[in-house]
């Protein structure tokens, strides 16, 4: 295996595109190194992208934020601007692993590891975040919901990688939230996760919403019926019950050691409801 740590994006693209064998991008390494030491993969080339200054940055762009692929969870959580605009995305990222894992793991790595239970992805999908994919051909902007195609599988072509994720600007009285269920309080993998992003008008009526679910299908789900239950309504008990019903109806989970189909289906609705309540409270607190 070769290890390379290029200092420019172009050099990284050239290395990845030129590798005939198995190539992997190394950002935080908290998934990759475990896969390597467990002999799940044997890369011929590792490209460490942490020496590329642009990928270590969080930059303001069109009222939103662009988060480089090598920004760690700890760095993201310390960024006041992102925490204020997209608190649900930050809380999703901060649920990944321990303090130690937060010191390394990245938002983009969590996305590209393509676990259906990835904690940051439902919040990113609810946020309608856009991944910038670069490779030997022209770069392209892809909705984050189209990156994972199934457990451990992505739509990225050979030689391509995600350079950054863009979190867009949003109107006043908008916010988001992410919640997950685990049987303990820390250090576990989501049994169900739910992300809600919404905007309220001055009368607290929801004018825009996106609802997502994690760990209840082969990939993170965007649940349009659940968003429809919110839009045009105040976030009251009736609206929340309709939201919960729509979320539970959309869940297509499996039975495994973490939870049963029945449990995950029910909890999908419960978490969507609670996340919507938190997001609405946050939105009301803004201007």
């Amino acid at each position, binding site marked *: 295996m*070769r290890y390379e740590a290029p200092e420019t994006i172009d050099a990284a693209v050239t290395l990845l595109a030129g590798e005939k064998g198995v190539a992997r991008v190394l950002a935080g390494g908290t998934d990759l190194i475990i896969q390597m030491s467990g002999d799940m993969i044997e890369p011929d080339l*590792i490209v460490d992208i942490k020496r590329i200054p642009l990928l270590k940055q969080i930059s303001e762009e069109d009222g939103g934020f662009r988060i480089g692929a090598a920004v760690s969870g700890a760095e993201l959580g310390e960024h006041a601007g992102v925490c204020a605009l997209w608190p649900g995305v930050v809380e999703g990222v901060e649920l990944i692993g321990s303090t130690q894992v937060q*010191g390394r793991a990245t938002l983009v790595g969590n996305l590209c590891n393509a676990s259906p239970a990835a904690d940051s992805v439902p919040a990113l999908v609810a946020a309608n975040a856009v991944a910038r994919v670069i490779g030997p051909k022209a770069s392209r902007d892809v909705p984050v919901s189209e990156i994972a195609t199934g457990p451990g599988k992505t739509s990225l072509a050979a030689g391509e990688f995600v350079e950054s994720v863009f979190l867009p600007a949003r109107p006043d009285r908008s916010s988001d939230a992410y919640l997950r269920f685990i049987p303990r309080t820390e250090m576990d993998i989501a049994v169900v996760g739910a992300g809600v992003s919404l905007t309220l008008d001055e009368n607290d009526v929801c004018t825009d919403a996106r609802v997502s679910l994690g760990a209840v299908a082969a990939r993170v789900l965007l649940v349009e019926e659940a968003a429809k239950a919110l839009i045009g309504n105040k976030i009251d008990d009736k609206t929340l019950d309709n939201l919960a019903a729509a979320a539970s109806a959309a869940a297509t989970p499996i039975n495994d050691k973490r939870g049963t189909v029945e449990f995950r289906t029910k909890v999908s609705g419960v978490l969507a409801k609670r996340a919507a309540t938190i997001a609405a409270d946050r939105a009301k607190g803004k201007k």
Partner: protein
Amino acid sequence: MSQIHVSTTVNGDAVEFLCEPDETLLTVLRDRLGLTGSKEGCGSGDCGACSITIDGRLVCSCLALGAEAQGCEIATIEGMAEGENLHPLQSKFLEHAALQCGICTPGFLVAAKALLEKNPDPSETEIRYWLAGNLCRCTGYDKIIRAVMDTAEEMKAAKS
């Protein structure tokens, strides 16, 4: 595999080593640099026994490659005491008997030190969440948490 030459700083000292491209930083510290204070518990980032800081950031050294240390500032448990003078956390761990077998102790100390540097006045809840990635199988959590809380109190008092 050809070895990689790495120049780095460990506990303030300039250090150079050769390592395999797929060798973890934990292996480099233990087997090449003789710094065996960092332990391998799980090798998968779950137990925290290999906790160190890289450029001031708390990480598991089993989840970093030796090659990634190039140009970085590494701090390990070996750099915590100043000569014979223990760090206040080390003294408090002894005072509170916050260890039994000791395998998890270096990781807990390094992690707790990183916490107090970031947040000198943590609540019990904050300490418990911060240390959730450090496992102790002798079940000494309460004593460990009390030792960290007591250290924070003492360090605050010393400053004021």
